[in-house]
């Protein structure tokens, strides 16, 4: 009986903050100084959300955004892991690339957006490339650190037991660097997600959640904007809970590299 009670109490606690915010929002929408067109009631927003979901517009936009996210991130992951491993393994690559990477890394990827528009035009190609460029540095730097953090004694031990280059790489270096690589991938994906929405606004892609927000601005359709932001928040929470935390649990924590 007490277990049931505590579940009820938990649900109440979880709902309370959202209910409180909703009440404040609703009061402000009805009594505040903004016209309802600019600050819609939550009922209007929910109505629009359902309408967009049923008509399929929201799904199409979500799908386009997710495809861009995955393409850009996969590109960044492949390039970033390869470059990072080369930097960690070969001294001359490291010396050559470290200054370049550390100079380009602090420039926000979004700042390249207009340059990419000039080079590649508008649309999908520059958006995906830009997301890839913006997110690959976190992968590069973490992979590099991970390969450098492999204990030299493990490498020497494997070599003295007659491991060839490929075995050494597959059986020693990769597993030892994997926690770092995963951290890099996680940071890279988060980075890609943070700028993708803005990239869509700047690149005038044909579909996408960011574009929906930007396009709705022209029509003062704040309800559409808030619906898109809600969808974005939903995807963000899913990414966080389902992808990042799971990745960490399955790999790093299981190997005892990190206590959960």
């Amino acid at each position, binding site marked *: 009986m007490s277990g049931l009670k505590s579940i009820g109490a938990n649900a109440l*606690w*979880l709902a*309370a*903050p*959202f209910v*409180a915010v909703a009440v404040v929002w609703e009061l402000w929408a009805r009594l505040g100084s*903004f016209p309802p067109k*600019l*600050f819609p009631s939550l009922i209007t927003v929910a109505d629009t959300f359902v309408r967009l979901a049923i008509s399929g517009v929201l799904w199409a936009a979500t799908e386009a955004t997710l495809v861009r996210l995955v393409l850009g991130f996969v590109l960044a992951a492949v390039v970033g892991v390869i470059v990072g491993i080369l930097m960690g393994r070969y001294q*001359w690559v490291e*010396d*050559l*690339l*470290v*200054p*370049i990477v*550390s*100079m*380009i890394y*602090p*420039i*926000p*990827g*979004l*700042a*390249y*957006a*207009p*340059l990419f*528009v*000039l*080079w590649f035009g508008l649309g999908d190609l520059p958006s995906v490339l830009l997301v890839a460029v913006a997110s690959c540095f976190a992968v590069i730097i973490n992979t590099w*650190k991970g390969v*450098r953090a492999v204990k030299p004694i493990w490498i020497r031990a494997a070599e003295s037991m007659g491991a060839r280059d490929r075995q050494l790489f597959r059986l020693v270096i990769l597993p030892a660097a994997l926690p770092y690589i995963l951290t890099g991938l996680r940071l890279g994906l988060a980075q890609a*997600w*943070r*700028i*993708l*929405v*803005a990239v869509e*606004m*700047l690149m005038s892609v044909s579909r996408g*959640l*960011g574009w929906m*927000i*930007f396009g*709705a*601005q022209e029509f*003062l359709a*704040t309800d559409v*904007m*808030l619906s*898109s*932001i809600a969808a*974005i*928040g939903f*995807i*963000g*929470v899913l990414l*966080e809970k389902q992808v990042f935390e799971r990745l960490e649990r399955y790999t790093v924590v299981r190997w005892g590299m990190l206590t959960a």
Partner: protein
Amino acid sequence: MKIAFSWRAFWRGAAGLAFLLLVWEVFARSGFFSRALSPPLGSIANALWQTFADGSMPQHALVTLGRVLLGIALSCLIAIPLGMLMGRVRAMERFFLPLVSVLMPIPSLAWVPLFILWFGIGNISTILVVIYAATFPMVYNVWTGVRSINPLWLRAASAMGANRRASFWKVVWPAALPFVITGLRLSFGRAWIAVVGGELLASPVWGLGKVIFEAKEFLNADVMLAALIVIGALGLSFERVVFQALEARTIARWGMVAAAKR
């Protein structure tokens, strides 16, 4: 990761940069893109020189920096007390944590068009985006910092007769400070991205993002690249000079480096 300075690494790094510049020069002169789209090094340097000589670039940079610093300062005013309360008071944690974890994964730039409708284009919208971007890493770090305080310290303090105020200022605050500094560092990184995006989208009159946006309209790729160089140099010097000095002065001196890992 700290790397000992060595002349060999220095020369190789210089060679790396020279190689990058050479590749760019060949690419620019190859005619793959027209000169207007990929200007050679000479005209980028010229654009950089001209915009510095007439004082416009430093002013744009100052405005952008001012927005970032103001936004971070305001976000600290919200985030540090909120994080502290969430760390110390159970009810506050239960109320605010769900809100924070829903709002945190929404990219700050998604709000720009809405902020523009509410507050118009210009300063207010841009600074609000910066605040949004900078607040969450700060709240999260302060909250983690306060929660990770060894309860033994608090019990020891109260056994020695510390009242609530004393135990806050002598125990909780110093113990959380390394996390505040880590939060500041993360906040700056997020805010730096947000301010450029905000300036691109919300088009205020001044700002480095504005320079880039305007240069696109007039196909001035050289000015655009000059602004990119300024953005990179500012970001790098904040990360390397300001924050490293801050950490050396505070966390490292107190011997708490291990505690402040993120």
